[in-house]
């Protein structure tokens, strides 16, 4: 286990150390101490390493992640795992707004609640939230899966493209062009796998699925102004 204490190591130096880890590094386990809400912790990683952040983080923790597994033993500020490409980010606490925004791949697990705009413009990432999510989540989401074990806020899935949304609790309101869809066997199978990987105990049968009605002008030009 390698330890980087942010009380002693500057942010850039810390990130540079993590960036320097090659594909075949032997130093696969890293621990970051005293994050104290700092921004851009463990951003832009590209190696199969495991990073544990002991505390809460500020903006953009784990942004642009490739391959790495990042555990945040606290809560995460805005834009956690933004534009993630692959790998895993797990947050023990809550996540602030736009968690997993624009993510292309990988798995983001939020064990607490996520704030507004969770998964906005997601492009292939899988997001599993054990708690609730805030308003405007999955706005313009293009692909990937958003799984919410609790409730969803207002305007879920507004202007959605092909992303799948699964919510176990209530949905305050659906956004434009977002509708409830039937849950088919392949969706239950997909959900079971995601819930299992995210360590969630909810059963797939308890969820409802939402997706795009494909009626907006992006799908039907006659519906443009």
């Amino acid at each position, binding site marked *: 286990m390698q330890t980087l204490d942010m009380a002693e190591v500057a942010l850039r130096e810390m990130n540079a150390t993590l960036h320097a880890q090659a594909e075949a590094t032997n130093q696969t386990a890293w621990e970051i101490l005293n994050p104290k*809400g700092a921004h851009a912790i463990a951003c832009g990683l590209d190696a199969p390493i495991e990073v544990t952040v002991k505390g809460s983080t*500020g903006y953009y923790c784990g942004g642009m992640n490739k391959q790495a597994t990042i555990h945040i033993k606290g809560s995460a500020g805005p834009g956690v795992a933004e534009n993630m490409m692959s790998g895993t980010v797990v947050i023990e606490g809550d996540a602030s707004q736009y968690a997993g925004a624009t993510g292309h791949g990988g798995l983001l697990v939020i064990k607490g609640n996520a704030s507004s705009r969770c998964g906005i413009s997601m492009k292939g990432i899988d997001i599993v939230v054990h708690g609730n999510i805030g*308003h405007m989540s999955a706005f313009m989401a293009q692909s990937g899966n958003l799984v919410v074990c609790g409730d969803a806020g207002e305007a879920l899935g507004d202007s959605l493209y092909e992303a799948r949304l699964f919510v176990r609790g209530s949905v305050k309101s659906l956004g434009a062009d977002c509708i409830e869809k039937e849950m088919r066997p392949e969706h239950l199978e997909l959900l079971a796998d995601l819930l299992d990987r995210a360590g969630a105990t909810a059963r797939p049968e308890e969820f409802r699925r939402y997706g795009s009605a494909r009626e907006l002008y992006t799908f039907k030009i006659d519906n443009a102004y």
Partner: protein
Amino acid sequence: MCGIVGLFLKDRTLEPQLGSMLTKMLVTMTDRGPDSAGIAIYSTDSMDKSKIVVQSDDPETDFEQLDLAVSKAIDAPVSMTIASTHAVLTMPNGLIEKARAAIAELRPALRIMSRGTALEIYKEVGLPKDVADRFEIGQMSGTHGIGHTRMATESAVTTMGAHPFNTGDDQCLVHNGSLSNHNSLRRKLRREGIHIETENDTEVGAAYLTWQMQKGASLGEALERSLDDLDGFFTFVVGTKDGFGVVRDPIACKPAVMAETDQYVAFGSEYRALVDLPGIEEARVWEPEPATVYFWSHTDQPTHEKAA
């Protein structure tokens, strides 16, 4: 961008440290707003007296025997404490209006920063650390306070464009965001006879609250109505004689984090601002909901519920 901090103490033994705790929080938010900074401190030491805080660009001339001149004009004892560009004038209760009119007459260049029995506002252009040092905020004690670091977007970087804005006796407002209907609202409020000095958007927000309260709304009601009438982005923190309140617009892009323990309720634009508070590791930390008015008060009959 802008940064906001707020601290409401439940544990009275922390009161002597309010200024130093709040200063630390404020300085952490420097990169969210390095243009100017301000702080509102509430202290219950002299509730039988009223205070007006004035600011001058030329303190040596303007503050020269100001206490004597105001005292003569209002026919009551007035004491003065000078801190850099600010002076606190202390007088018996019930004379604030009279004193304010006298100051406007005697020293027209002076700007009123705040008025009330508990509230003192200090604000200036410059880095938060320099502003706090200049007024020795770190030495101040009090029951609660709010602070602001400004990154100007809607109007010039001036003392009067800095936050907090005084909205009435013992009330003030800080804002992170930008109001988009401030020009039309300013015209409307001016027609209603509300004094608005600058082109700043937050001053319009503050004047809006003052106007609502003049029409009989409590501060809580005024904030509820602001959700309908103010367009744009805002996270507001308001200070009252006995506590503080928080409200965010329905879109809520401007960040807000709160922490509560048995000792305090704290507000920060970011969690970073809260990390040095005692017991933060065990605190309940959450984000205030959009379009929801929150208040914390030291009394059972909080002023934000009373009609002005």
